[in-house]
């Protein structure tokens, strides 16, 4: 294990942080043929070369047994590495070293701002019986969250006063609700003809739906909210995602029957329901349309931090997603229109499934110019051969934050606080300017409800086909390069990879059925 220089040692950090005595330790192993391990190679490892370093599984078990015997707790085991936990004193004893406190720049968003680690001059005399079985042991540093620099966060303000039904002024171009999003998707003509989604059941599953926000009341929107297993309190939304993005459905299909499925547990942010549980709960409500702005990123990823270790796409569906895949396939086969976000640079699943409508992003500027959103994903799936993501698009902002649609959210919720660092709303005003393909999915779901009101006999494939042939072509811009192994897919005339068939045109589709 290499020793390190202190990173930061400011008096401010010393005052505010205390390292955990409990250490998380990564263990690497030696390959059987020559005892070489990954930390002793001078060449950089690749996904091809790493296979040549695979240790004998029996050696892994022997080493973990010895570590367990000395007091470490095995927390995870892979084919090449394992993770164990143990306290500072145990680590010092077994590896013959003395740890010191190291501190991280307090402006970095990390899981902890101090940790124990061997200093540069520390001795390193591990128990020989352990070292004969392993390649090396590394104390894991606190992980860095994917957010940019940490901004000082005002304390959450749990509704000391209700937010306003009217959005604040932010002084830059954005879309307002409930008029701009429907207008740009050619919905007002459909409403004028009397079609508002009446009688169509749309289920949206997300963080929560705090529809007591005055915006929803002022616009006479009504909803019911059910709880998925482990979710709590059907009136709240600590994150704000579900509340805000659901405004897209109401603006487009105000007459539809909206059923929200809350996944989050307010009391336990680590808990809450899985996407599969949410989907199963959604099916109980006999939906005609299901809208989901959640998903998985199918690249090589560090499972603990969620950060990618490579932009390379996975080529097979992980076992852990096969149940969800089958349940979605069964729902579509039974006539349910299922809409998922294509991702914001994610290689999104289920957003890449062929059976669903994959919602991508188009940005419409203040002069009406349309361009592919560079925030939204576009890629060819390596799991479903021939599947190009997205099918077509809703309205999504541009990088870096996709601050585009003014949406109502619970006062002081996570998005209210975090987005206020860049969207010029305040941390507790109950409004945020955001979008993502999370906005596109409910927009398209709303348009599907309009079509189903006019013709309830349409199948999911009928709806996909009519939307596809009635889209407005988008010929400029590129999608998010992070979704396509670093190469941004470009928009061009006709069907293209960046926007699929283009921006959905509700009136053109409605006229065709």
């Amino acid at each position, binding site marked *: 294990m290499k020793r390190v220089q202190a990173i930061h040692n400011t008096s401010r950090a010393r005052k505010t942080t205390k390292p955990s005595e409990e250490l998380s330790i990564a263990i690497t192993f030696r390959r059987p043929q020559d005892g070489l391990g990954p930390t002793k190679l001078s060449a950089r490892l690749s996904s091809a070369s790493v296979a040549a370093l695979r240790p004998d599984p029996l050696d892994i078990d022997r080493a973990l047994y010895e570590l367990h015997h000395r007091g470490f707790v095995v927390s*995870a085991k892979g084919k090449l590495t394992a993770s164990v936990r143990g306290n500072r004193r145990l680590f010092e004893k077994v590896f013959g070293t003395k740890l010191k406190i190291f501190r991280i720049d307090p402006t970095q968003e990390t899981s902890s701002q101090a940790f124990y680690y061997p200093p540069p001059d520390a001795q390193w005399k591990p128990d020989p019986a352990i070292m004969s079985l392993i390649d090396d042991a590394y104390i894991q540093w606190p992980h860095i969250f994917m957010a940019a620099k940490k901004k000082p966060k005002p304390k959450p303000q749990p509704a000391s006063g209700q937010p306003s039904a009217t959005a604040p002024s932010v002084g830059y171009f954005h879309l307002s609700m409930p008029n701009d999003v429907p207008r740009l998707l050619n919905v007002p003509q459909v409403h004028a003809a009397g079609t508002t989604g009446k009688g169509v059941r749309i289920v949206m599953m997300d963080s929560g739906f705090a529809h007591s926000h005055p915006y929803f009341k002022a616009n006479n929107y009504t909803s019911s909210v059910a709880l998925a297993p482990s979710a709590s309190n059907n009136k709240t939304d600590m994150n704000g*995602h579900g509340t805000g993005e659901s405004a897209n459905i109401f603006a487009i299909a105000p007459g539809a029957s909206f059923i929200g499925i809350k996944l989050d547990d307010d009391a336990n942010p680590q808990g809450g329901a*899985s996407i599969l549980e949410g989907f199963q709960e959604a*099916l109980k409500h006999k939906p005609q349309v299901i809208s989901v702005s959640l998903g998985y990123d199918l690249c090589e990823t560090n499972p603990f931090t969620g950060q990618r270790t490579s932009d390379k796409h996975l080529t097979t569906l992980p076992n852990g997603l096969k149940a969800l895949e089958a349940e979605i396939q069964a729902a579509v086969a039974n006539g349910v229109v299922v809409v998922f976000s294509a991702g914001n640079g994610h290689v999104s699943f289920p957003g890449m499934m062929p059976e669903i409508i994959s919602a991508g992003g188009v940005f419409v500027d203040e002069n009406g110019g349309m361009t592919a959103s560079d925030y939204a994903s576009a890629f060819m799936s390596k799991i479903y051969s021939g599947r190009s993501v997205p099918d077509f698009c809703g309205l999504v902002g541009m990088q870096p934050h996709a601050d585009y649609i003014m949406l109502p959210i619970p006062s002081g919720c996570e998005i209210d606080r975090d987005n206020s660092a860049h969207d010029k709303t305040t941390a507790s005003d109950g409004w945020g300017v955001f979008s993502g393909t999370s906005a596109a999915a409910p927009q398209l779901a709303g348009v599907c409800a309009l079509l189903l009101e006019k013709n309830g006999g349409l199948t999911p494939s009928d709806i996909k086909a009519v939307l596809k042939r009635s889209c407005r072509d988008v010929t400029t811009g590129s999608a998010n390069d992070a979704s396509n192994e670093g190469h941004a897919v470009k928009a061009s005339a006709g069907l293209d990879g960046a926007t699929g068939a283009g921006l959905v045109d509700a009136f053109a589709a409605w006229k065709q059925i």
Partner: protein
Amino acid sequence: MIKLQILVRQPWRTSEGIERVRELIQTIGIKPTVSGRTTLSAEIPEDSFEDVFKVPVTKVASRPPSERDFGRSGGNISDDLIIPEPLRKYVENISVASPYFRM
């Protein structure tokens, strides 16, 4: 509690088949939560997970919004699970529910 996802084998993807799996999992300490047409969701206490599946499970923390998403849920991860003997006839796949992104 650890969230589990259970995919039922093709011949048993009926309400009777789902019900059969629901009964069986309870005999090995797994509590069903909700089911669909082809799957069941369930929970198992953390301290009995390793006894039933013979592999460890790791808790993964939730994460707040970042530039690319609106946060990641909490959850658990594990190696592929071996289907316990009493379920093998009926179950095609069983897995731990892993964290997801808000997009």
